[in-house]
């Protein structure tokens, strides 16, 4: 590929390459290809103010994603103005060779025929670097370069003595800014993955703020949309297969203990893991302890299989291997994790450990314990890498058969403890890349693409009230944990401990602004990222209530834990975007993992009385959308009791693309070329997109239904066209809450057609909003095409008011059927409100009047269309269309189901969450009735009429436990939890008990 096209790959399309020159640095060693440079003059014209500015870029060749030296890296940039000059002089004695087509290598071979050029930077760009002198053989190119520089210097209107700070300049040379930003080049082409925090943001959030008549930075936005489009498309085009990688992650705060128990439940994913979870449920008893000493472990490892298979097996196992060593296949179960990633905290609590390295004795002991826990499978695994900082140890074991697929292993650490740097708190991290084995002789891959995995083991500040400190520790670690920059060199040998060799290339020229340096890699610059940590986040529920709830045996663990984790500080910090924003965590199904007391000061469940139980040990993750990560399990292992924490494990499957990087790059370049015209400025007023229908009518929109309309949009122009939806006002939403639009951004090639889907789905939250608005729904969507036009799409619909999803106080002020309301404010005065919502009364009265068939009411599933008919009748006020004394037993069931759905849709609970705690204290029927005094009159009437009916059918029934069963269903409906409430929830069984005072 020519130097020009290589250079064009790293230049933004509005900027124009004037001349590209192959040259070499003048250094002692003229033969070294490391000294090859590309010099290029780039001009930027601003059509808006008719000015032109130029810059001289100096680039170096680097190893590209394909493995060859075929990419350019920007090294320096010199704005052309003021003092800037390029001086030529002849080098050596030989005659000047005017051939311009010689490759740099031949330049190196003919030192006699070269011209040297020296660059004098403009004011503010000089530094201590040696004279910027290069030599080149391309005399013609050099001539053009010098004259372009002269021309651009004259064109510049910058004060000759002005020193311009490129990083902050908002006027001159501000167009250079995108080059400083790390990801300015096409994302698909860089070997460094994009920051996960950025890539996981919806594309629209990454674009500049914009609204009707006020476009944002269309150029930059088009660039972002284009990058994203190319990134996805290029990868899809070259994908030849998928490979699943199984990971088992564990985190364990060992409280300074040495291993003294069998760790197999925690370490082993499958068989033992499953058995242990069963044990955990059936009996709180502990499995027999196994005393393991590091001495005896040695024998476990040197088991006979090692002698049979002294060599690493190849990742591409042939059939022959499998037959020959059938026994081995059994052991190397594909269901076993490929990687075992374990994070330990408080490995060593001694003061000495804080001050100096205490050797690897503890690490070795724990690694042996892990191998021992793997049992006979240990033979399949090998330690790949580990990284320790004081008490925090991150260690990764790999299946031997896959070991050669892992490379580029890097480690790093950051302290966040005492003084913000000491290692009693902080984190260690490992980054590695996995190149899936691929063996297909039909379509061989020459340069297989790889996927990077990053693991962080961290330990954050302790104590309940330190939430803010934990949040800031997290942000601090996010910044400070970074890996040394490196070129993508392949290393298949395992990397032992600490810092791997520094591959950072020596940059001869100090950087003016940081362009193209081997930048350190952030832990977020990866395809998948996992944090395993003792976060020390606690639960914001008072200590006594928390223990009471945990102990409550009548409350099933799953709903109890679900209710309690709503008060978890980590969940709250994520919700408030204060820490771990964008991370995912599987719902917790296990009991708190901290703090267990070995002594006397413990509660009935074994938790320390002085520390509030908490889920301190967690596993969180995030990943590139192109690299699917699925979590399969998340559990604690209470049978491992040696520490005050319980270990936690999580199984993951990472689904990776198998692709050829050379094909990826070729695709990306091709797509990039297709896209070149996208950013041409001279597109003013072009008619790019044609929208097939700009008026969309949803007609009648009613509760519980959904509707979809499709719009086809065609690019009728001859150039690619990027679009995005924009809001009417800068701070207003792009579309109303009752509507969803997909996609919100995109690119269309000439003649391409895209379908935009508009959909409406009225659930109870949307209905609660729409019930209080005028029924005419209309909105105008604005589809903005870059630098051209705002297209309007009118959307309309007529909302059908429903009695569902209202407040009781509003329902009692309706003049009649809600559907007949002309405006949402057409209500009775508060003083004239009726006693109870007539819709509930109609339901209860009907059920009371048709009480012959009560079998299955509230318990059996109902016919949806009958429920729908009943709801319509409630909304319209029409009589129920069912024959008196109907024989269809499904109808009473449908009425009961409608009542439940109605109560669930109410915007408030009949008994508000604030009163739930008091329901716990009621010990008899009379006390329970007294509590009703706290309710609003309408709620009391609803409660009394419903419970009276329930009482009636339960009394009459021959089934003894009918009241119990009905109460189980209705208690959580009548005493609904409020997810926004700060009041700790109560057990559903307590709710049931309260309801039973009224119906049994």
């Amino acid at each position, binding site marked *: 590929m020519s130097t020009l096209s290589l250079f064009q790959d790293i230049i933004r399309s509005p900027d124009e390459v004037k001349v590209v020159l192959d040259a070499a640095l003048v250094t002692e060693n003229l033969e070294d290809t490391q000294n090859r440079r590309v010099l290029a003059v780039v001009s930027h014209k601003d059509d808006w103010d008719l000015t032109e500015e130029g810059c001289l870029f100096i680039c170096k060749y680097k190893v590209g994603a394909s493995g060859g030296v075929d990419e350019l890296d920007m090294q320096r940039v010199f704005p052309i103005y003021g003092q800037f000059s390029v001086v030529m002089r002849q080098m050596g004695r030989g005659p000047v060779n005017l051939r311009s087509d010689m490759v740099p290598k031949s330049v190196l071979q003919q030192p006699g025929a070269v011209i040297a050029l020296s660059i004098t930077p403009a004011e503010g760009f000089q530094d201590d670097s040696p004279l910027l002198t290069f030599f080149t053989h391309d005399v013609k190119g050099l001539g053009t370069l010098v004259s372009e520089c002269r021309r651009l210097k004259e064109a510049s209107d910058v004060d000759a003595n002005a020193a311009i700070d490129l990083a902050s300049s908002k006027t001159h040379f501000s167009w250079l800014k995108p080059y400083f930003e790390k990801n300015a080049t096409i994302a698909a082409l860089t070997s460094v993955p994009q920051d996960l925090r950025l890539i996981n943001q919806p594309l629209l959030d990454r674009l500049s703020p914009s609204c009707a008549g006020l476009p944002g930075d269309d150029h930059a936005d088009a660039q972002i949309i284009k990058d994203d489009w190319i990134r996805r498309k290029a990868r899809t085009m070259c994908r030849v297969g998928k490979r699943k990688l199984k990971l088992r992650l564990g985190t364990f705060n060992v409280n300074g203990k040495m291993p003294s128990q069998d760790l197999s439940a925690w370490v082993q994913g499958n068989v033992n893991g499953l058995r242990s979870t069963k044990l955990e449920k059936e009996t709180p008893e502990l499995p027999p302890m196994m005393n393991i000493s590091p001495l005896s472990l040695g024998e476990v490892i040197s088991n006979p299989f090692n002698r049979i298979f002294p060599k690493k097996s190849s990742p591409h196992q042939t059939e022959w291997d499998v037959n020959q060593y059938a026994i081995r296949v059994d052991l190397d179960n594909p269901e076993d994790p490929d990687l075992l990633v374990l994070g330990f905290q408080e490995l060593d609590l001694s003061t000495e450990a804080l001050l100096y390295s205490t050797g690897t004795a503890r690490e070795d002991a724990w690694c042996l314990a892990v191998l021992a826990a793997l049992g006979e499978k240990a033979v399949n695994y090998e330690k790949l890498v580990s990284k320790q900082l004081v008490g925090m140890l991150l260690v990764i074991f790999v299946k031997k058969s896959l070991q050669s697929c892992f490379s580029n292993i890097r480690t790093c650490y950051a302290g966040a403890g005492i003084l913000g740097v000491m290692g009693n708190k902080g984190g260690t991290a490992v980054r590695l890349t996995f190149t899936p084995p691929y063996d297909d002789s039909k379509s061989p891959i020459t340069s297989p693409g790889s996927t990077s995995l990053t693991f962080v083991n961290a330990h954050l500040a302790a104590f309940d009230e330190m939430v803010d400190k934990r949040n800031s520790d997290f942000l601090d670690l996010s910044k400070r944990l970074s890996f040394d920059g490196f070129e993508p060199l392949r290393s298949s040998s395992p990397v032992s401990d600490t810092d791997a060799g520094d591959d950072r290339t020596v940059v001869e020229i100090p950087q003016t602004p940081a362009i193209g340096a081997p930048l350190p890699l952030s832990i977020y610059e990866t395809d998948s990222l996992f944090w395993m940590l003792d976060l020390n986040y606690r639960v914001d529920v008072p200590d006594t209530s928390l223990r009471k709830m945990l102990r409550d045996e009548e409350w099933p663990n799953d709903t109890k834990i679900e209710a309690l984790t709503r008060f978890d500080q980590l969940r709250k910090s994520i919700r408030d975007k204060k820490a771990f924003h964008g991370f995912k965590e599987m719902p917790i199904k296990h009991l708190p993992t901290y703090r267990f007391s070995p002594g006397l000061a413990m509660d009935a469940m074994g938790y320390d009385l002085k520390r509030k139980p908490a889920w301190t040990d967690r596993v969180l993750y995030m990943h590139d959308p192109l690299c699917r990560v699925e979590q399969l399990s998340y559990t604690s292992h209470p049978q491992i009791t040696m520490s005050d924490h319980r270990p936690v494990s999580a199984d993951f499957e990472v689904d990776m693309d198998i692709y050829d990087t050379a094909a990826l790059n070729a695709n990306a370049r091709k797509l990039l070329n297709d896209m070149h015209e996208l950013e041409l400025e001279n597109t003013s007023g072009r008619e790019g997109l044609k929208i097939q229908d700009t008026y969309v009518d949803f007609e009648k929109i009613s509760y519980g239904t959904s509707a979809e309309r499709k719009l086809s949009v065609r690019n009728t122009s001859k150039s690619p066209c990027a679009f995005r939806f924009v809001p009417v006002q800068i701070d207003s939403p792009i579309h109303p809450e009752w509507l969803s639009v997909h996609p919100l951004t995109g690119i269309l090639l000439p003649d391409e057609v895209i379908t935009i889907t508009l959909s409406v789905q009225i659930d109870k939250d949307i209905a609660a909003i729409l019930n209080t608005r005028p029924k005419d729904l209309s909105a105008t969507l*604005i589809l903005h095409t870059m630098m051209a036009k705002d297209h309007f799409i009118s959307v309309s619909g007529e909302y059908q008011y429903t009695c569902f999803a209202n407040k009781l106080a509003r329902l009692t002020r309706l003049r009649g059927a809600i559907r007949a309301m002309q405006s949402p404010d057409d209500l009775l005065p508060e003083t004239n409100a009726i006693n109870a919502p007539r819709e509930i009364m109609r339901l209860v009265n009907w059920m009371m009047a048709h009480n012959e068939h009560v079998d299955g009411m509230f318990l059996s599933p109902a016919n949806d269309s009958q429920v729908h008919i009943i709801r319509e009748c409630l909304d319209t006020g029409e009589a129920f269309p069912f024959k008196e004394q109907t024989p269809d037993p499904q109808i009473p069931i449908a009425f009961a189901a409608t009542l439940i759905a109605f109560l669930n849709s109410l915007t408030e609970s009949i008994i508000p969450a604030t009163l739930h705690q008091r329901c716990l204290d009621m010990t008899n029927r009379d006390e329970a009735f007294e509590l009703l005094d706290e309710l609003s009159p309408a709620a009391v009437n609803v409660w009394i009429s419903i419970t009276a009916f329930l009482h009636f059918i339960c009394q009459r029934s021959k089934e003894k436990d009918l009241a119990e069963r009905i109460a189980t269903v209705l208690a959580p409906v009548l005493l609904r939890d409020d997810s926004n409430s700060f009041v700790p929830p109560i057990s559903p069984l307590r709710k049931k008990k309260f309801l039973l005072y009224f119906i049994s």
Partner: protein
Amino acid sequence: MSKQYQFKLVLLGESAVGKSSLVLRFVKDQFDDYRESTIGAAFLTQTVTLDDQTTVKFEIWDTAGQERYKSLAPMYYRNANCAVVVYDITQSASLEKARTWIRELQRQADPSIVIALCGNKLDLAARRQVSQEEAKKYADEEGLMWTETSAKTGEGVTEIFTAIAQKLPLTAPSATRAGGARAGPGARAGVDLNKQAASAGQPEACNC
């Protein structure tokens, strides 16, 4: 040294009076006999040279005339430095509509906005329903610029935009770089300039 100014211009008026045709003639010197109704707002630019030293660049928003989209019009005339309100000389109702637009602009747009009333379709003068006298009288009363144009023949089109450029307060500093880092179509640059221009142009008003 040459100076360039940048202004935001919005076209308003009833549907089918020829707003888009007027812009197409001004920007590309073209005319389509059958143009589809504008649904949305198109963004175009054109530069007018006033003399050797001065150029004015218009950022033009050509809006939809249909009543359905009326509520969105304020988004496009906010921060506009000038507005061209177009009517069709063969439709007297369109002048009424123009008056409504002008009242709205006077009430809600930037007070320093320069408004031009423009009677289009001069090539159809034979079917004229709006007399020149009537329109001119109204424009004078309201202090508006006024002219008649034909987007079809091109008559009067460049002239009205040039006249607006001359009327705009060219006291603002050169537009060079005012927009900062690559502000795309530079709409925001126009806004800033406008504010400066407005304050610079205000003293006379204060003397009243």
